């Protein structure tokens, strides 16, 4: 069995992902435990889960500006960002920041 990852979407990010706020995915065997990183997860999400245009989610090999990423409830900047090594049962949250009032 591959890695199981819990994905959550907030602040409108869910509109890019079939309007689902939570989704638990089992990653294919190409994601090697102890090696696969967030850098691998993002294009997999883009190709397998995204229901809107890719540029609303990614820019280059990372998320586009204005998206906050949390790894197990902490800002991903504290966890190594793209280099973070995925662990089974991780929760990754994607938050679109809001600008309205």
């Amino acid at each position, binding site marked *: 069995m591959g890695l199981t990852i819990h994905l959550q979407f907030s602040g409108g990010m869910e509109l890019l992902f079939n309007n689902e706020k939570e989704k638990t995915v089992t990653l294919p065997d190409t994601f090697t435990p102890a090696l696969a990183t967030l850098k691998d997860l993002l294009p997999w999400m883009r190709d397998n889960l995204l229901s809107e245009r890719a540029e609303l989610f990614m820019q280059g090999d990372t998320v*586009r*500006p*204005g998206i906050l990423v949390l790894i197990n*409830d902490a800002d991903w900047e504290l966890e190594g960002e793209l280099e973070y090594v995925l662990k089974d049962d991780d929760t990754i949250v994607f938050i679109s920041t*809001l600008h*309205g009032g």
Partner: protein
Amino acid sequence: EWTHKESLDNDEISRFSRQLLMREIGVQGQLKLRNTTVLVVGAGGLGAPAVMYLAAAGIGRLGIVDYDPVEASNLQRQIVHDETRVGMMKAESAKATVNRLSSFCDCIAYNTLIESSNAMDIIRPWDIVVDATDNVATRYLLNDACVLAGKPLVSGSALRMDGQLTVYNHAGGPCYRCIFPAPPPPETVTNCSDGGVLGVVPGIIGCLQALEVIKIASGLGTSFSQKMLLFDATSGAFRTIKLRGQSPTCAICGKNPTITDLIDYVQFCGAAPTDKTPAQTL
């Protein structure tokens, strides 16, 4: 002329008795509220409850900045205005409501578009700044002006059924640019005119902005420096997340800042400071 006070008078003691009773505020906390000046930028969905609760709580001097007139479609959420005010400038309308609510608050309306040329002058006299604006360009402008002027920035935002709250540039915490060094691509930004908003969602966030201002002003301290509160009105869920700290490489608050004066924020963001420009929906 508004000046600091050394003590509360009898009218203030009677008016604010419910707060004087509390050990968290008391006479000293109430006097601090009286001597604190707060600038609210934006008299829309967030600013509406923020200015009313700040004035009600006894903030001594309140500035309100907005350049738009009240429109009927604002009244679904902007409860500081009313049908008699349609067409009036929002800052004037909000000031009129504050004046009816409390004679203990010295309220100043800026019927002005805040921009790089005037932002430092507008912000400099105030102790705390509330970001109740509705667009990306003004959010970067306010952040940079608050860093340059050394003011805490109590920031709220809302769209559809979602709200967010944080305090920037305070108590060693990060600024907006520390978290978001690059602006979002304009085509990913949705405003309330395009995406809609349930009126009470900015109401809740605006109230929480007033609360954090009151906590900073009275000495209780804020709960949201280097933290962000996320609110999902559909599920009624609040969640507090820990943000990265102040960044040594931040372009405005870092060790070697590359931004030392306000820049052109329309160019930087690729979008003008208006909630009205048609933009693509996220």
